[in-house]
């Protein structure tokens, strides 16, 4: 009796849960099927299964439609920007969390105020500045902008974590004669690994998906990152739905592949700023 009643009361819950799962997962599966079908097949039956599966579309997108270039541009920009923002951010966060010095609070306020700056407030001026210093329409310029605009979040997360490391460890390290830099490298970094991992994940996903700065600061086709490349391709091949879907999968797959192995880390990383 008890059992039956509970099942009945839970029915709406289960129904809703199933429905929402279909709504979130369904569209992604749809893109996945379309990426393996030709446009003619899709227009004949938009919701059919990919039979036969046209795996060669990925090779075609990669070589003929320039997706290979877009992919490598994205990879270069994101890897370098994430590496720099992590190192610069960790150094600054360690310094802010560990040392009492005059101006500590000013520096902290300055950097953390970057958390509320809308990209629109800087993008027009960045366009001018990069033009001035001849870095407009270069990957280097985009990397610098990415590092600068993601320092705030990185320092915010890392400093919060670093500040919780017990001071005793640092006193002991100092007693043992460690230099300041050794303390950073041998104490803070190893202990702070989880937080560093979090910021790396967060920055990687955000930058891999970044669109606004890229669209303002890049124009050449051979410099486009993946989001820009896909937009460009969609604009010029609006009706070639099959090929656009293949392009979307090329952008999605790296993220899904990492997500499959590190789902907990990625969830933690993406929400790190909001969960307290």
């Amino acid at each position, binding site marked *: 009796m008890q059992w039956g009643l509970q099942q009945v009361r839970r029915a709406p819950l289960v129904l809703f*849960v199933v429905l929402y799962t279909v709504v*979130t997962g369904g569209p*992604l599966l749809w893109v996945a099927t379309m990426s393996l079908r030709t446009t003619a097949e899709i227009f004949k039956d938009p919701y059919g299964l990919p039979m036969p599966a046209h795996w060669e579309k990925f090779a075609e997108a990669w070589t003929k439609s320039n997706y290979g270039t877009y992919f490598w541009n994205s990879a270069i920009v994101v890897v370098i920007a994430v590496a720099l923002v992590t190192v610069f951010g960790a150094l600054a966060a360690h*310094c802010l969390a560990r040392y009492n010095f005059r101006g500590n609070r000013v520096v902290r306020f300055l950097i953390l105020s970057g958390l509320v700056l809308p990209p629109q407030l*800087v993008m027009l*001026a960045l366009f001018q500045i990069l033009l001035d210093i001849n870095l407009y329409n270069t990957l280097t310029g985009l990397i610098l902008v990415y590092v600068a605009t993601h320092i705030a979040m990185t320092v915010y997360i890392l400093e919060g974590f670093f500040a919780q490391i017990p001071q005793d460890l640092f006193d002991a390290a100092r007693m043992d004669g460690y230099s300041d830099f050794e303390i950073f490298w041998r104490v803070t970094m190893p202990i702070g690994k989880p937080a560093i991992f979090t910021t790396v994940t967060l920055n990687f996903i955000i930058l891999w998906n970044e*669109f606004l700065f890229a669209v303002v600061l890049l124009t050449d086709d051979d410099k486009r990152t993946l989001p820009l490349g896909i937009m460009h391709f969609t604009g010029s091949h609006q009706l070639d739905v099959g090929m656009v879907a293949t392009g979307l999968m090329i952008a999605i797959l790296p993220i899904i592949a990492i997500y499959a192995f590190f789902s907990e880390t990625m969830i933690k990383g993406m*929400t790190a700023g*909001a969960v307290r």
Partner: protein
Amino acid sequence: MSVPGWLSRFAGRGQARPEIDARSAGIAVLVVFLAPALLVYAGFTIYPVLRTFYNAFHAIKPQGVVEFVGLSNFATLLLADPIFWKAVANTSVFTIVATIVDVVGGLLLALCLFARAPLAPLLRVVWFTPVLMSYVVVGILWVWIFDYDWGLANAALRWLGLGAFEQSWLGHPSTALWSVLVAHEWKWLGFNMIVFLAALHALPSEVLGAAELDNCGWFAKLVYIIAPMLRGTIVNLLVLSFIGKMMVFDLIWIMTGGGPLWSTETVSTYVYKRAFEWNTFDLGYPSAIAVLWFVIILVFIAIMTRLLRQRERLEF
């Protein structure tokens, strides 16, 4: 050979000064730690912000022509630019609705999983997936879903026997903004869900258990016990959502470009258009829009945090 104290501390171990104070550091050490971050940040964030404020009071034309115009950009903006006001109206509707949906929807989804729905750990991972997708992917995908002829939205309506409601969702001024909003929420609900779920799991189970013993209904439990205890998280997410929605650009740009008939034009898309698409060739005017909007965002954040901040912290 005597090495200055600060240098020896930085150079290597063994030469440290006699007193041990791990909290202090010489100026050179501080510079090495802070300079990389501060230099990049100053050059590519602080300076651009200042330059945008400077731009807002000037007309910036090509070939380096800069002309001081005082407050005239702001005057035009506020008094003689109907498209700006249309954009403000759209952004406001979008922000208010999307922020509420974000917080309420995220909480309800989190409660579903918290109520031990079957397969909860797996569903949590699936529901979060859209958060990881780029706006370009989400935008193009939803343009297809809303496609008149073969999109999922109309196909689902036909399948349900509601063919009469078929629409060109993104092509009609009365539905376009709402359609983009649906796509936006599809991407972001999972984020709010995860944050709420983490907060729910951090709640003291004794309180929830006590409510159950008192035979408290689930709705009463939600309104009188769970929501008050989650107040901090709710405020956080409200502010976070609010900031994100006030600046919404990518998805709108990708799905509608602000059209049809400015029905989805937001402040951010308008800034972009005035700067790079209109042949007014003036960076000053869009900068003025960006500055004004930033100030408005700051004012609202201040009001929200003041109004919603917990007067006395709940003890539990």
